[in-house]
Every structure is written in structure tokens, then in C-alpha cells.
């Protein structure tokens, strides 16, 4: 019937009764439900059908555990304790902000044995982790003896936002290695930052750094170790992959272009005792008042320092700084 009328008459006329009829149907359903609202509860189980999208983690934290571990000696109970609390600290942080924590074993291995690629497992681990988490964008490498002091700070807000304008794009501000600051063919104005790093009293510090997934990073991780470079330099590269990166940085503009430097205390504060030659320079050392983000007890097992004592100190300090006041539920002015 409907078909024949539309064929003989202009469609505008046939449209009206049809639409009214549809609305009539809806209004009967609506009034039915209005009288029995409990029927809506029946829809609740269907909510599980809605696909719930997990926020894919943007940041992967790579924690190098078991540093130098292996068969040479037993780990002491104190070392176990330090490792455990380091892992717990990062796990808590990652959970709080929806990041992924990936713990990587850096035990001594034959393929990175003495005088052969030792130190460069960092690049291999980064490559492997990038394959493991194909959705993640940033990869934050942390050595074992680091401790996040301000777990409330999110990386996106603290570090990854406006990166290009907030990081140093050359070494003019602090240059302990005396690398030539100005280099031909470096175009920092049009390049993104693909690696965030800090310099300590002696140069680059790879105890805590971030890389972004990018073609640049692919290339860097691939070129970081080269047998020809290694053969010539392995005797003088005391800090292995770190010195190698310094060498590459100084000679290759494309690497320079995309490294953004932050002050050491932004991602990698030292405890007093590190950098003994410059122990009065406040730019390296953890400052409780400024609530520095992370403390790196690098080298805590050398000299008269003790990893366990330092760790204990910072763990307690963090607990104290971030503990909730007993009267937190009272209005602020009561405190």
C-alpha cells in the first residue's frame, strides 16, 4: 500500500503518515517503560558487552635488576632487600599513573662478557622492550639503585609536555666533557626531542633516561655498538656505552639534534657522597625542600657508602614527605 502511494504521489506527502506511525511505536514503548522503570535494570547485564578500552600505557619503565649479578658471588640479604624495595617503589609508581613496569635482568652474560659489549646490553634491552610493548611511546630506563621520591608526579605533566622548549638542546649550560658546543648541520629548531637525559659532574648519565619510539631511536640503538668503534676505543671507554654515546654525540649532528638535556636533579638527583669532587655544588644533590623527583644512589656500594643505609634513609624520607596528615579530612585552615 505504502509502495503504491509513493509511486503515484509526491514523496513528501507519503512521508508524514509514515513518520508519525514510527513515533507512535516509540511512544508506546516509552510509556510502557515509564510505568515500569524497574525494567531498565534488565539492561544492566548488557553493559558487559560494551567493549571497555584499556588505556594503552604510554610509558614503559624499564628497571635494570640484578645488576652485575651472576655466579661470581651470592647476593647478600641487604642487597635482596634493596632490590625488593626498588621494585616495589617503581611498581607503585607505575600503577598509580597507568604505566607499565618491565623488570629486566642485567646479570652478567657471556655475550656481554669482559671486554666484549659489556654495557651495551642497555641498547639490546631497549630494542627488546620496544618490541614487547608496540603501543608504548616512551621508555624510561632506570638503574636499580634509584628511588622515586615523588610518586604523585606524572611523567606526562612533569617531563613529556612541551619537551622541546623545556630541555636544553646543547651543552652550553653545563659541559664537563668540553665537547664543542656548536656543530655544523645541527637543526635543533625543527627537530623533536627523542631522548631525555641529564648530565652529572662527569658528563652524560645513563642511570635514568628516556627514549621515544622513533626512527631516530631505531638508528641510535642500532649504531650504538659498532665493532670498528669498539675495537679502537674499548680501552679508553671507561664507562662503556655511556662514553660511546658521548663520542657519537660529539661527532654526529643527527644524534645531537634530538637529545634534550634536563638538569640532573629533574630526573636523577644524587645523594651526598656521589660526585665527591663537587660536593658543594647544589645542582647535583637531592634537595628535600624542593621535593626532587628521583634519587639515584649510583655507586652506593663503593667506598664507605652503604646501599642499604642510603636506601633505608630515602625510603623513610619518602614515606614521611608523602604521608597524609592525620587530620587530612579537616578543612585546610585547621592544620
Amino acid at each position, binding site marked *: 500500500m505504502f509502495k503504491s502511494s509513493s509511486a503515484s504521489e509526491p514523496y513528501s506527502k507519503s512521508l508524514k503518515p509514515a513518520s508519525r506511525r514510527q513515533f507512535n511505536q516509540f511512544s508506546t514503548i516509552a510509556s510502557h517503560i515509564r510505568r515500569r522503570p524497574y525494567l531498565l535494570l534488565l539492561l544492566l547485564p548488557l553493559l558487559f558487552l560494551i567493549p571497555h578500552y584499556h588505556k594503552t600505557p604510554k610509558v614503559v619503565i624499564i628497571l635494570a635488576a640484578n645488576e652485575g649479578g651472576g655466579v661470581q658471588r651470592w647476593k647478600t640479604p641487604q642487597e635482596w632487600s634493596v632490590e625488593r624495595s626498588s621494585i616495589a617503589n617503581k611498581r607503585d609508581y607505575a600503577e598509580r599513573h597507568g604505566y607499565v613496569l618491565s623488570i629486566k635482568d642485567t646479570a652478567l652474560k657471556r655475550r656481554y662478557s669482559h671486554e666484549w659489549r659489556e654495557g651495551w646490553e642497555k641498547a639490546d634491552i631497549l630494542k627488546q622492550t620496544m618490541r614487547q610493548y608496540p603501543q608504548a611511546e616512551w621508555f624510561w630506563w632506570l638503574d636499580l639503585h634509584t628511588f622515586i621520591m615523588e610518586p604523585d608526579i606524572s611523567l606526562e605533566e612533569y617531563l613529556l609536555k612541551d619537551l622541546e622548549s623545556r630541555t636544553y638542546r646543547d651543552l652550553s649550560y653545563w659541559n664537563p666533557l668540553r665537547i664543542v658546543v656548536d656543530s*655544523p*648541520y645541527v637543526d635543533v629548531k625543527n627537530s623533536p626531542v627523542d631522548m631525555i637525559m641529564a648530565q652529572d659532574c662527569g658528563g652524560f648519565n645513563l642511570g635514568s633516561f628516556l627514549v621515544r619510539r622513533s*626512527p631516530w631511536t631505531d638508528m641510535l640503538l642500532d649504531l650504538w655498538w659498532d665493532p670498528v668503534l669498539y675495537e679502537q676505543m674499548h680501552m679508553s671507554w671507561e664507562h662503556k656505552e655511556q662514553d660511546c654515546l658521548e663520542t657519537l654525540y660529539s661527532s654526529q649532528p643527527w644524534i645531537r639534534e634530538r637529545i634534550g638535556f634536563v638538569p640532573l636533579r*629533574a630526573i636523577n638527583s644524587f645523594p651526598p657522597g656521589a660526585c665527591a669532587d663537587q660536593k658543594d655544588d647544589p645542582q647535583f644533590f637531592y634537595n628535600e625542600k624542593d621535593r626532587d623527583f628521583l634519587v639515584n644512589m649510583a655507586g652506593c656500594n663503593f667506598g664507605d657508602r652503604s646501599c642499604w643505609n642510603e636506601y633505608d634513609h630515602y625510603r623513610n624520607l619518602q614515606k614521611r614527605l608523602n604521608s597524609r596528615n592525620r587530620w587530612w579530612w579537616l*578543612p585546610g585552615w585547621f592544620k
Partner: protein
Amino acid sequence: MHLGIPRRSDLRPKGKNKPLLPIPSALRSRFKDYSNKRTAIQAILILIIGNYIVNWLFSSSKVKHNFGHLTNQEALQTLQDNHGIYKNEISVGSKYIFPPIEHAPLLRELTLDRLFKNKVNPDNPQEKLYFYSDDDDLNDFNEIKDKSSSEDPLDQSLKAFKEHGRKVFRPSSGKKSPEIVLVTGVDFEKFEQSHLTKIVQNRVDYAHANGYGLYVRWIQEFTPTLQEYNNERNWAKLFILRAAMHAFPHAKYFWYLDQNAFIMRHDIELYSYLLEPKSLEPIMMRDQPIVLPNGAIKTYRKVKAEDMQIVITQTKDGINTDSFIVKNDIYGKGALEFWTDPLLRKYSSFTSDEKDALTHILQWHPVILSKTTIVPGRTICSLHSSNVAEEEDDTLFYQEDDFVVNFKGCDVHHTCELVLDSYWKKQQGTN
């Protein structure tokens, strides 16, 4: 009724609902609202929310959510300008950047001693060390000021030589950058002016016919750099190529064609002929050993043509770096800069031949290998052979109507001029 001293009972509330304390009647109604549940809940909510707001205000002042207080804002503002080897550059509007070839005999007469600052090598008194000098008097366009405005051709050629490396293509607004730039290094000590003219003219004609850019440099301009690690002159091509990438920042491809090669076909457009993925796909040599005849490392089997950053050919001895194409992006630049890293340049088995360094890179670095494709030699680098091509299906040696001819090894027999001349005549005949 007694109205004098109140009795005790007069002070007590009269009814059950009377308040203990006398409250003014204006307020009394408001206090009564507490009995209203809704108001009570509202009050508690306001208290909690107010508490959170105050807490937030207090805590945000304690924990710093950025590291701005640690950075030196002034140092952040100063960003380095992108410059080449020379800081003061000359902007050129023409997309053909090549040195005046007629200066070749004059430059030879001047010798390197007058072209560069130099001093005697303290370790080897026979040898001189050459240095770049960036201290010439420059005018507003970064050109070297004429001191005496002399007409002496020697002075003129010296000035042109020193200025040539500063030239970069920066078109006036509206003019577009060429997509492809042809790059060549020429050696005025090795070849006569007539020979060099033929080579450069060949490049200019080809670039002009296809709307490409051209970047030609004297190899001698790189003497101080080559000298650092006793590199042979063929290493200069890499520095020239990197300078070309700086001079034409918006070009997509750079084709390095050595001075011992000659373009025979000006009608072949490189992009549609070779670089377009659909042209490149069928001729990519997959699973091809880098070191011939049977090296262990081979090009990847499953790579896509559009991912290729370096296009290169092989001779029977391995990689041929006389003619190759590099894409102008982070992979191309990175590979080129790694190739010229001082540690590779001074490695004893690489100093004489940059080709060995590339062979090494391709074999050790999968990321670069996966972006590199080897194409049959006759596509962009047919080899000249004194004999007529032996086999029909030969992919290496020049045959009639090939694109480019490469006189590799002509300098060993000192036949470069002769060979070039024969091809030049052949080409003049056809065009």
C-alpha cells in the same frame, strides 16, 4: 499573679520543644533547619569539597610538578642556528650551484698553499697541514670583501674558491625547492679544464632538462678535512653530499654521481625511472650478498620499496659508491653521518676507500641494511668496458641506450679523458 521576684519554674522552658537557651526568634527558625536532612547533607558536602579545594591549594604549592625551577631559562632560549661547515652562508636563488670551471687552471697555479692557511706538519716536515679559516672580511651578504678590487684573475679565483662552500639554496618566496638534487665532486688537480667542463656541463644539462637541483664542489675544498685522518680523495664525496643536504634542505633525494661517470640519457626522469615505489619494487635485488660473490650478509627479502633510503649498485667486487641515491631524512642523514664518523674514517682498513666503510656498516647494522637496496648496475651506473658487452643479459656493463656510464678505474690507466671523449661524442651525435 505575682510579678516581682521570678520563681524558679519561670526560668525553665515551658514546653518540651523550647530551647534551653533563649535564642532570638529571628535565628531560631534557621537553627530549626538542622532538623531538615537535606540541609545537613548539603552542609557536610560543602565542608568536604571545601576541604579538598583547600588541601589542593596547599599541596600544589609544596610539590613542584615541573622542573622549571632547576633550569636556566636564559640558556633554554638560545638555540643554535642550523649552519654548515661555515657559519656565514651566502643565500643563492639559483638551483644550480657549481664552481666556475674556468678557474681550474688558475686554482692549480695557486696551489693548496695559497688556498688554505697552512703550516708544516711537526711530525713529518715533508708534509703540510691545511686549515679552514673563517676569518675573512665579509660583507652583508657574507661574501668576501674585495680588498683591492683587483682584476687579477688569480685573486678572483681564490675568492670564488673560498666563497663557493658558503653557498646554500634559499629560494625567494614562491619559488619551490627541487625534489631531486644531483651532486658531484670535481678535482682540478686531476683533470684538465676541458674535461671538467664536459662533466659539469653534462650535469647542468641533465638537471636543467628534468628540473633538478645541482650541487658541485671542488674536491680540494675538503683537503683539511680529508687530511685529519689521511683519507683518500674519494672520501670527499660524503662531505659534499652532506653539504648538499644542507644547501637544499627541502629536496627529497640526493643523487651522488662521481666525476668519473657521464649521463647519457637526458630524457630519463630519475623519479619515475627508479625511485617511485612501483618502479623500484621489481628491480630491487633481494637476498643479494653485500660482499660478492658469497658474503654471509644479504639484503633483506621482505622489505618494501617505499622504505628504501639508500639506492646503490654493485660491481663484481662489491658495493659501487660512484653513483648512489640517498633520501633526505633522518635515516639518510644518520647513515651518512655515521659513515663519516672520525672513528670510521681513521680505521686503518677504511682510510683509503669509503666503500669499505659502507660495506662494513651494511653488514653490522640491520636498521641501515633494511633501508638500503641494491639495484642492477645498469640502472644508474653502467660500467664502461673497452670490449663490447659480452653477454646479452649482462647487468653491469654499458650497452646502447643505457642511462649512465661509469668509467671506474680509468684513472689507473690514465684513460679518463679518452673514454669520456668517446662517450661525449656519442652523446653529441644522438642529441
